[in-house]
């Protein structure tokens, strides 16, 4: 159980780092030329950043949520891990394209 819990919150934390890296590139680009394509990506990253901030709050600080996760079945726990974990994989691909 605790392994799944750890993977879930670490994934949310990694997502925050990746989104800050992406956002930094896009802020620089948008300030330089103001292209709407870049602005769209910036909005996308901002919303996902808020989402992962909420996840981190739940996993690190919200005792009610932590208790629910701990007592949930393995299927639910794996599902919750996939929510943030698959996003990490997706963002990693985007970072690879964006950082080149």
């Amino acid at each position: 159980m605790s392994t799944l819990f750890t993977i879930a919150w670490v994934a949310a934390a990694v997502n925050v780092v990746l989104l800050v890296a992406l956002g930094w590139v896009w802020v620089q680009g948008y300030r330089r030329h103001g292209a709407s394509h870049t602005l769209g990506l910036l909005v996308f990253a901002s919303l996902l950043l808020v989402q992962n901030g909420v996840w981190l709050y739940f996993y690190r600080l919200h005792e009610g949520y932590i208790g629910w996760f701990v007592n949930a079945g393995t299927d639910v726990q794996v599902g919750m891990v996939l929510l943030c974990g698959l996003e990490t994989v997706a963002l990693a691909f985007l970072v690879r394209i964006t950082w080149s």
Partner: protein
Amino acid sequence: MEDVLWYVLASSRGGPTRVRILRALEERPRNANQLATELELDYTTIRHHLDVLMENNVVRRTDDDYAAVYLFTDQVRSNWDTVETVLEAVDSDSEAR
């Protein structure tokens, strides 16, 4: 092609350098060494950006020789209006610099 051009030129870290490379290649085809000299950048930096542009089918090389010249792909030539739109949006302050 349009979204590729926006991504590669406007929304990625190497965008500004790749815009300069496209402008230089628009004047005339050049090899990586000539581009490095013209843009005052490292040869390896130029090669990295040319590789990205090749992976995205924006430019192609004439052959595998190290002095190979880089040209625009047919895909880019037939979408040149889009290229101009992206370059103008991204490169609008280049004349002021």
